[in-house]
């Protein structure tokens, strides 16, 4: 039976390669892809010549994407840490739980109250008619779906503990070799 280790001892053992790879992938998905999407949308709106009408909807999307990126930065560090440690390592469970807990907070920071309000200036759509649509305000409410995601994240926490338990012995054996 291999000797049990403490969390402090486990924290000394990890894989830099896996950690860096996870960090880079997180950076790409949380920062690079949204930035590229933002620039693409900006270019698309400009090429359509619908800048004024789309200004408000574009501003809202911009703000949401910026919140996603800025509040997502801690997740890049956490992604590095969760992947740095291998299965069966106590530190991996700890950082997975921290990362998932922060992901729940992140979700609500990006979409406060589970809502996304969007406004559209439409006064220019029927410029010559007697009737015109002045503006449209749309609020999307997906709090229910976000709560389902929270349940899935809680499940993922339990799963990370199950993975830890089922790999702990193998991890300790490898450590003692």
């Amino acid at each position, binding site marked *: 039976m291999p000797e049990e280790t403490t969390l402090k001892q486990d924290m000394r053992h990890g894989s830099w390669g896996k950690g860096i790879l996870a960090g880079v992938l997180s950076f790409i998905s949380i920062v690079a892809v949204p930035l590229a999407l933002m620039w693409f949308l900006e270019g698309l709106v400009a090429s359509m010549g619908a800048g004024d009408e789309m200004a408000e909807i574009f501003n809202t999307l911009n703000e949401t994407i910026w919140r996603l990126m800025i509040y997502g930065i801690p997740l890049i560090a956490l992604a590095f840490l969760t992947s740095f440690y291998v299965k069966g390592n106590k530190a991996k469970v700890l950082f997975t739980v921290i990362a998932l807990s922060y992901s729940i907070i992140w979700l609500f920071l990006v979409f406060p109250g589970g809502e996304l309000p969007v406004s559209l200036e439409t006064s220019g759509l029927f410029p010559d008619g007697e*009737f015109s649509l002045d503006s449209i305000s749309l609020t999307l*409410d997906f709090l229910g779906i976000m709560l389902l995601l929270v349940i899935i994240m809680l*499940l993922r926490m339990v799963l990370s503990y199950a993975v830890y338990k089922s790999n702990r012995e193998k991890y300790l054996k490898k450590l003692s070799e």
Partner: protein
Amino acid sequence: MHVKAFSVIMHAVYALAIAGLILFVALGFIPQDTGEMPLDVKLEAESTYEVSESNGVLEYNFSDAVDNHGNPAEAYTDAGVKIPGTMIYPEDDASVTAAVTAVKAYAALNPDVTTVTLKDGDGNVLTQMMIMKESNEITTNMYTEISITNRLRYDLIDIAIGVDQLNDSGTVSYRVAECPPSTIKTGETFSLPIDISINSLNSALIMLTGSGDTLSMYMGFDVSGRYLYGLAGASIYATAVFESTTAAPDVDISATQISITSTDPIDQLPSDLNVTATIGAITVTIVNDSTGFSVVMGDGTVNIVDELQDQYDEGDYTIEVGVPPDNEVITLTQEEYAQMLDLVKQVMEAGGA
């Protein structure tokens, strides 16, 4: 061994939860028949009218329905019997008048006939975007239906629709129509009846509580509902404007009199509007005809807000319309009176009185 089994079960539960959520949400946005639009929304009502409506109202509706349809139509009873002498041709006022006379005569001989429906030569029921109902000097009543066909996979829940009249600065909102929340089951078409009641006095005041640059009529359409078994929802508020060519009027506002006059009539109000109303000690005259539009409220001696407030506090929500002996007493609801009072206060504030 137990730990391994627990891990396997947890992986399975997690995978099922993820796959289930993705499938549930994705399926919700793919219509059952991909060749059709997921939602079909129509704003119209079938051309069925109460025979007890006045000749003027029936003539307006017959004419509007047939002109919109573009083909001749005839009137049928609710039992499907064609009423003789009711052939109506588009853009033909004489045929409209004759048809209304025929309907009234038929109804007088057959008291069991309470409604009539217009149908074209192929038996199709005509539709109208807005059916005019019996109105009085103060209130214009209209009726329409919003029909929504749900071709999505899940029911649309708590679909509620409201229509507001707004001023141009958006600071005043007056609900003229409202539908109670309804569920539209998947694959079904649901019609939401909308009774619209526009108070002419409020309508005129609302237009004047804005910036005063225009007499255009602003309407707000408020639609909300939930989807995915209530997990997601949306609320939409669209503001539409019916542009008026009427120039900005001369506005004179004091605590004892509001006077608004324009040499142009307001297109959106009835073209023969001439109302004299008395609310407590306040007299209101509203005129909208070919000579122009004017609203005069108060005679310059009584504080308007105080008088209206006193009447409201006493629970008297009546408006006397017309000049004796041809006067009529209209009783507003408490809410309607409160809205009118609120609008008058806003006009006073906007005018610095």
